[in-house]
C-alpha cells in the first residue's frame, strides 16, 4: 500500500482511539440547536428571515459554522503541534516521509471526521427538532465541503508553524474569534456596518456561514463566497507545505 494510504489509515485509527476532542466540541453546537429549538416560535417561518425560520436561517448554519471553525482552526492544529512538541514530527523528519504526506493524511482524516459530525448535527436538527432540510441540498453540501476545506487549511497553516500545542491553540483562538465576528456570525451580515459587509463574504468563516444560510433557504452560494473558500484553501495549503517545520 502507498505511504499515503498507510498513513491515512494509521491516523484514522489514532483518531478513533481518542475521539475526545471532536466529541467535546459537539456539545456547543448541539446545545445551541437545542436551546433555540425549545423556543416555540424559533421554528416558525418568519418574514424576518425571508420566509424561513430562525432555526434554519440562523441557528443551524451557526451551529455548523462554529463547529467547523473550532475543529479546524483550534483543535486540529493543536493536535499536530503537540506532535511537534513531543518529537513525533522530529522522528518522522529523519525518515523519507515528506511534510506533504503527513499534512495530506491529517487533512483527509480530520475533514472527514468533521463532515461526519456536521452530518450528525444537521441530522439531529432535522429529525429531532424538526428543522426544515436545506432547500438547496447540493449547494449546501458544496458549501460545507468547500468551507471545511478552507477552514482546515487555515488550521494546517497554523499547524505547520506553531512550536507547541498551547501556541497552536492560542493562535487558533486569535484567528477564530475575529473571523466569527467579521463573518457575520455574531451579528448577521445584513446588520454589519457597510464597510465590513465585504469581509463577511471574503473571510472563509463568514463565506462558509453565509453560503450555508443561503443554500439552507434554497438559494445558491454567491460567487464571492465560493471564490473566498477556494482561494483560502489553496493558498493556506500551499503555504503550509512550504513553511512546514518539523521541529
Amino acid at each position, binding site marked *: *500500500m*502507498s*505511504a499515503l*494510504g*498507510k*498513513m491515512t489509515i*494509521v491516523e484514522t*485509527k*489514532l483518531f478513533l*482511539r*481518542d475521539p475526545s476532542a471532536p466529541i467535546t466540541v459537539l456539545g456547543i453546537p448541539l446545545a445551541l440547536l437545542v436551546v433555540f429549538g425549545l423556543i416555540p416560535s424559533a421554528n416558525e417561518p418568519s418574514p424576518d428571515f425571508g420566509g424561513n425560520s430562525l432555526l434554519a436561517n440562523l441557528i443551524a448554519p451557526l451551529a455548523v459554522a462554529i463547529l467547523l471553525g473550532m475543529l479546524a482552526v483550534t483543535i486540529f492544529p493543536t493536535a499536530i503541534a503537540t*506532535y511537534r512538541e*513531543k*518529537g*513525533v514530527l*522530529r*522522528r518522522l*523528519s*529523519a*525518515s*523519507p*516521509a515528506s511534510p506533504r504526506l503527513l499534512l495530506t493524511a491529517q487533512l483527509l482524516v480530520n475533514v472527514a471526521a468533521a463532515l461526519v459530525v456536521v452530518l450528525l448535527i444537521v441530522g439531529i436538527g432535522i429529525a429531532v427538532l424538526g428543522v426544515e432540510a436545506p432547500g438547496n441540498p447540493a449547494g449546501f453540501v458544496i458549501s460545507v465541503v468547500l468551507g471545511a476545506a478552507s477552514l482546515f487549511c487555515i488550521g494546517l497553516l497554523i499547524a505547520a508553524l506553531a512550536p507547541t500545542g498551547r501556541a497552536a491553540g492560542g493562535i487558533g483562538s486569535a484567528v477564530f474569534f475575529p473571523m466569527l465576528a467579521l463573518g457575520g456570525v455574531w451579528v448577521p451580515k445584513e446588520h454589519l456596518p457597510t464597510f465590513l459587509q465585504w469581509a463577511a463574504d471574503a473571510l472563509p468563516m463568514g463565506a462558509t456561514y453565509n453560503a450555508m444560510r443561503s443554500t439552507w433557504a434554497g438559494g445558491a452560494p454567491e460567487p464571492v463566497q465560493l471564490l473566498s473558500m477556494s482561494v483560502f484553501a489553496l493558498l493556506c495549503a500551499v503555504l503550509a507545505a512550504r513553511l512546514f517545520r518539523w521541529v
Partner: protein
Amino acid sequence: MPIIEVHRLRKRYGDKVAVDDVSFTVERGEIFGILGPNGAGKTTTVECVEGLRRPEGGTVSVLGLNPWRDTAELRQRLGAQLQASRLPERLKVGEALDLYASFYRDPADPEELLERLGLTEKRSTAFKNLSGGQQQRLSIALSLIGDPEVAVLDELTTGLDPQARRDVWELIEGIRDSGVTILLVTHSMEEAERLCDRLAVIDDGRVVAVDTPAGLVAGVDDEQRIRFRPSAPIEDHLLADLPEVRTVERQGGRIVVTGTGNVLHAVTSVLARKQVIAGELRVDQANLDDAFVALTGRKLD
C-alpha cells in the same frame, strides 16, 4: 572509500558555537563512536550528518551524498535513532513498523525486525505502555526498517537500567555484524569502550582525538600500579632496579610498585625467582576515563 566523511564542520546557534571544527571519517562496517560530555556538540554533528541541520562551514559526505542536497536519497539509505523523539502515544508497535516500512523503497521485513529486537510479543502494545527499554528498542527497529547501509544512534542507552543497556549493546553488535555501519553518539565511557571500533573524542565543539579505545588509553599514559602483600621479606632495590619500575613504596605490609610497559611481568619474575608469593595482588591500569581527563583536562560526567 570511507562511508562518512566530515571535514572541518562548523555550526553556530546565534552567538553560541555548537560545533567549532570537527573532522572524522567512518569506514564501512565499523562502529564509530562520538564521545564527549553533554553540550560538546555531538548531537549537532550527527544531525549535520543526517541532513537534519545545515552547517555554516565544512563539508559532509555520507555514502557519497551531500546530506542537505541529496536529502531524499540519504533518507532512504541512512537510518536514524534520535534523541528526544517519540511516537504517538496510542500507536501500536506493529503499526509503527508497518507505517515506517511504507516510506522506504526496499524496507526490511517488519516481522523479522520485531523478532530480532525482542518485540514480537509487544506488537499490539501502544507506545505509551512500553517500558523505557522497549521504547528504545522500537526506536532502534525504526532506524533499521529501511534496511539502511548506515545507522546513526544518538544516546541510545541513556536512562536505561544496566541489564537493558547490556541487552541493547548486544543488539548493536549484532546489527554491525549484519553489515550496517554504525555511528554511535554517547557520553558513556563504558559504552564507548565496549562497542566502538574507533571513536572521536569531542570537547567544546572540537575533536581532541580520534583513535581506537585501546589506542586512546595507550596514548595517554600506560603507567600501572601494582599492589601486593609479599609472602616473605624482599628488598626494595631488587624491584627498584628493574628498568620498567619507577617507584617502590611500602604501605604497612604491602608493597606498591608503579611503572610502565611490561612492569607486571618484570615484577612477578623477580618474585618468582626469590620464591616470594604475591598475595592480594592488584593491578590498576589507565582506562578511557583517564584518557579523557588527559585529553580535555576534566572528567566526563
